[in-house]
């Protein structure tokens, strides 16, 4: 739940410091709050906070506000904010960093499709080395909202009749050569 007011004593400045020390987070404290990122973001009007407020809250240390937000999951990683930022802050990479911590701490909104997709994609590629679009969509639906499949029937049929729907479950031969887990976000 979003609090009506934020209290400074609830902020965690040490966490903000650590966030700025992760790769891509370097410029966090040089932000001018000019709002160019939110203006350049094609998705900001649909977000609960938007990139400018994410940066403002994050550098103040309001960890739960940003980690529980839907904003970080609406980010499509188009890097428009990053290439437009006058301070060259790698905002899209800060978003990634926050997504990883939200997953690790299980703070993401439950049954919200974007984090579900990310996790199912990750599992599929870790197991098989490749992603099979058809099977990925099935897994996404069953783990979020199974009824979404009804809305996808038309597109599925269109893809099928144009020979673009592969039912094959792809995998690589050298599964042992795939990288192992290297989690370490909250450190």
């Amino acid at each position, binding site marked *: 739940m979003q609090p009506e007011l934020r209290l400074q004593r609830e902020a965690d400045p040490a966490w903000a410091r650590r966030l700025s020390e992760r790769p891509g987070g370097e410029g966090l404290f040089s932000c001018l709050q000019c709002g160019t990122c939110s203006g350049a973001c094609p*998705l900001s009007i649909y977000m609960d906070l938007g990139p400018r407020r994410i940066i403002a809250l994050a550098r103040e240390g309001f960890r739960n506000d940003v980690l529980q937000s839907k904003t970080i999951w609406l980010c499509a990683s188009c890097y428009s904010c990053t290439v437009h930022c006058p301070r060259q802050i790698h905002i899209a990479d800060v978003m990634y960093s926050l997504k990883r911590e939200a997953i690790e701490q299980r703070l993401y909104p439950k049954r919200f499709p974007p984090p579900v997709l990310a996790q199912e994609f990750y599992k599929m590629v870790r197991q098989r080395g490749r992603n099979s679009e058809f099977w990925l969509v099935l897994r996404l639906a069953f783990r979020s909202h199974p009824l979404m499949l009804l809305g996808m029937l038309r597109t599925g049929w269109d893809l099928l009749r144009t020979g673009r729907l592969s039912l094959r479950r792809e995998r690589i031969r050298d599964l042992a050569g795939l990288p192992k887990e290297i989690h370490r976000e909250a450190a």
Partner: protein
Amino acid sequence: MSAVYGYFPGCSLKSTGVAYEESLLTLFRLLGLPLEEVDDWNCCGATSYMSIDEGAAFSLSARNLQLAHQARHKDLVAPCSACYLVLRKTQDYMQRYPRIAREVGASIGNANLKVLNAVHVRHPLEVLYTDVGPRRLREKVVRRWGGGRVACYYGCQMVRPYSEADRPHDPVRMDELMEAVHVPTAAYALKTKCCGGSLTGTIHEVGVRLNHILLKEAARKGAQAIVTVCPLCQYNLDSYQAEIRRTTGDRLDLPILYFTQILGWALGGDIGSLGLGRAISGRRTIERWLLKTRVEKEAYV
């Protein structure tokens, strides 16, 4: 420019984006550029892997770079914008962050990361522009375009921070290649605005809305088709036009083509080998356009 280009297809070019693979292979064959698929490549991880485990995401790409290096490819052609960005971002991070380089090196069992950073990751648009060029392309034209004006849509990740494919804010290379093969282009200000990527599958209304804006603006600028360089952009713009017509009343039915399909057609490729029958929207327009084509020289395919 290398003798044989390594080819990293990525997952989309084997399913929803199969027309991109077909037209790319045909076009490179017509131009006499040898392209060899990297054996046993793995998924680039796209945006999802990066959202879960950063070190493993970079290691996935490092494995692909290593396979390309072992096959002695100096150039690695990655047609999908997501693959292209992830591969290049991996090289950038391995050079700038020693900790990430160490992790990746340990993960793929290779301490010599310099050779992986030396693999030149390239987008086919940049390969065609730099290694072939508009002038040589024009010399090879055998068919005069019989279709309408197109909007060149570059999308986001191909031109963003780790790229050398084109200018990040106002890319022009696709427009130049289209004009080289006598295809008229529209002034399209939204050419680098994101299509939403996987959002059409996750937060459907938002994803479709982004694509609606892109389509409407192209039509408003007099374009009768959109040309793309990315399988996800093509899929998004192509697949939801019927839904957009139904929910908004806008009568959009634009063909969404790959730039390799149009170049391949001008150079004499046939409909099947360019995947031109695989479009969902604007199918009748495409048929009409292809029939109106004038043969300039004897086709050699």
